[in-house]
């Protein structure tokens, strides 16, 4: 020990320590780094990124910039993650038709494979939320009642009690959630598209998101039962009032006209 301590001020001591440290790190890396099976994935991944980049250059770059850095016409896509791409392109919102208060959803023009490639490219620009796997938004293990409570607390202000949509300022709106793919609802909560705030897992946990999706499926899905008859859009008292005036009072006035027209005639003698 004495010998070592005597040489610690040797001019080459720092170099030796550096070499030792490098060897140690390298050795640890070799021991813990993922095995070479990642190699195949990586090539597939980089292939997808390459393809995505080409699609991006054609369909997206005019607004979002050639490298996804954003322009005056479109925001930067660095760090938005694959989930945002899957939502925006998967619901047809992107590529946008024209600028406006809000980009509406429309016919999807890319295949899912192409969307995945685009997503891979955007994800490669910076880390962001990934596309959720099916068990995250599937109905198993979801608490519908809890989802309803969460929905009314967090979502109903804009999307209405059962997700029928509502108006926002200056022509913007919260769209209806009827017929929206559960995956897209999950991604929307995660990424907060357009005017929607994002609800990352720290705000709404994965379980919470699952509950909300299950609730929406129960009250606004294809199999939802309407025990009271026609739901009149589920928009509340405005549509009910309109219905009462047009079909309720309208029918009654028609009946009144009919009754009044059939009067007893005085006998003509």
């Amino acid at each position, binding site marked *: 020990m004495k010998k070592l301590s005597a040489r610690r001020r040797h001019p080459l001591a720092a170099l030796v320590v550096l070499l030792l440290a490098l060897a140690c790190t390298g050795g640890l890396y070799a021991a813990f780094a993922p095995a070479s099976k990642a190699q195949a994935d990586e090539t597939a991944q980089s292939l997808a990124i390459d393809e995505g980049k080409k699609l991006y250059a054609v369909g997206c770059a005019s607004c979002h910039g050639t490298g996804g850095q954003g322009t005056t016409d479109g925001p930067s896509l660095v760090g938005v993650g694959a989930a945002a791409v899957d939502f925006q392109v998967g619901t047809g919102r992107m590529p946008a038709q024209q600028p406006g208060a809000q980009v509406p959803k429309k016919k999807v023009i890319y295949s899912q494979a192409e969307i995945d490639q685009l997503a891979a490219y955007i994800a490669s620009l910076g880390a962001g939320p990934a596309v959720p796997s099916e068990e995250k938004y599937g109905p198993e293990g979801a608490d519908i009642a809890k989802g309803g409570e969460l929905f009314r607390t967090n979502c109903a202000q804009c999307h209405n009690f059962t997700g029928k949509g509502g108006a926002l300022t200056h022509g913007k709106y919260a769209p209806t959630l009827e017929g929206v793919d559960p995956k897209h609802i999950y991604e929307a909560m995660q990424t907060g598209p357009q005017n929607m705030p994002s609800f990352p897992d720290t705000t709404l946990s994965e379980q919470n998101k699952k509950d909300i999706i299950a609730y929406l499926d129960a009250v606004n899905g294809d199999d939802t039962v*309407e025990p*009271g008859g026609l739901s009149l859009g589920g928009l509340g*008292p405005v549509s009910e009032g309109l219905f009462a005036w047009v079909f309720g009072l309208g029918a009654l006035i028609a009946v009144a006209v009919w009754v009044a027209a059939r009067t007893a005639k005085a006998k003509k003698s």
Partner: protein
Amino acid sequence: MSTTANEAPRSRGKAPAGERVADWADGRLGIYSLAKANMRKIFPDHWSFMLGEICLYSFIIIILTGVYLTLFFHPSMNEVTYHGSYVPLQGQLMSEAYASTLDISFDVRGGLLIRQIHHWAALIFLAGMFVHMMRVFFTGAFRKPREINWLFGFLLLVLGMFTGFTGYSLPDDLLSGTGIRFMEGAILSVPIVGTYISFFLFGGEFPGHDFVARFYSIHILLLPGIMLGLVVGHLILVFYHKHTQFAGPGKTNKNVVGMPLLPVYMAKAGGFFFLVFGVIAAVSAIATINPIWAIGPYRPDQVSTGAQPDWYMGFSEGLIRVMPGWEINFWGHTLALGVFIPLLIFPLVLVAIAVYPFIESWVTGDKREHHILDRPRNAPTRTAFGVAWMTVYFVLLIGGGNDLWATHFHLSINAITWFVRIAFFVGPVLAFIATKRICLGLQRRDKEKVLHGRESGIIKRLPHGEFIEVHEPLSQEQLHTLTAHDQYRPAEIGPTVDENGVERKVSRGEKLRAKLSESYYGEESQIPKPTVEEYKEITSGHGHH
């Protein structure tokens, strides 16, 4: 002996059962003279005279279904955990009121249908009252001697609005809770006493534990009780005044032409009751109303978009929605004008239409009784005022549903709000002017029809080549109907100098009245109806069409 004694009355024949029952009842209630006077009461026939009946019958339907609902509804705000049959709410905490409404909807036999009949009938009742009131207004049926009945009807409308609002609030769902919160906010905006009233009403901080039980008493007892009394009074007055009728041959201010109450009107009215019940039941079976299960239980920390009151309160919602959020802060107090001003305008909108009949009778100075109805065109100023009022009302309804107008017509909600703000002031003025012009145009048309006859659509070519359209003269009945109305002359300020040459003071009220009268009945405001001389001169046949 006994047999002969029994046979003696039989020989004259026993009275029929109906007569004996009537005799029995008359001996105890003295109803003969009442029935004699009223059973042959005449009612005129016109579909618009049945609008009031729609209201009466829907009111009866509301009472009947309401009684059924009280059997199952628990007006309590105790917190319970839901374990009923609606799955998406199981395990949720809610008030007993909400839970019992869910039970009525899902677990009580026929409960949902009865609930929907009750609610649809309420909307139709209010809509019916609105239309009935407009019928009375535009035909001038509110004139002497019916002013008090007009006020009874107006009170029924206002009470109906508040009965509806308290009923809408009872289930304690998220929508109605938001409505109550809205009302609480309006109360709080009242300077000085607002907070006290709010604490008194809710028994402390909103929402507290009391309001459902309190609103329940108001909804099922207090307001309907008053309404029932008013309805009876309204009907007694209709009987007493006799019904109005439209002008026509044989119809005068002193008679009523129509069919007797018994048997014709009894059968018609009875049948109409079932038709009304049938239509409302059909609507209730077809369409959902207030699906409280989808709306969720009320929690003060939650709110949804599209939270509106039922339509009859929609104009108050509109007032609040379009009012700029003005606020005055001084010495640590806040005056929330953005809420308080709408709260003040709300009753004014209603009172404006209620007091109109009195203003009109002051302007005309007419003390005669009127039993013949006006055609709206023949009272242009009144008609224009009514249309202006409806314009304000409808513009405010647009404001109350501005979010749905925005989403359904792809408009900006801000643009709609600004439209409503401007149209609230400009709309009624434009509507007034336009309506008055239309009325005058229709009066001219009537005059033309009387003097020149009806356009027959037959084109005739005269020998010298001229084409003319043949006009057919109207029948005597039609001529009478078109010229039966009175035309007022503008009231002038009497001589300002009396017989001794002393100048008298003309009061400001008198001047105003003369001015208003001029605007009602001056040259610009009515087309003089054709006189007999004019008619004779034109129809005496100088060869022209």
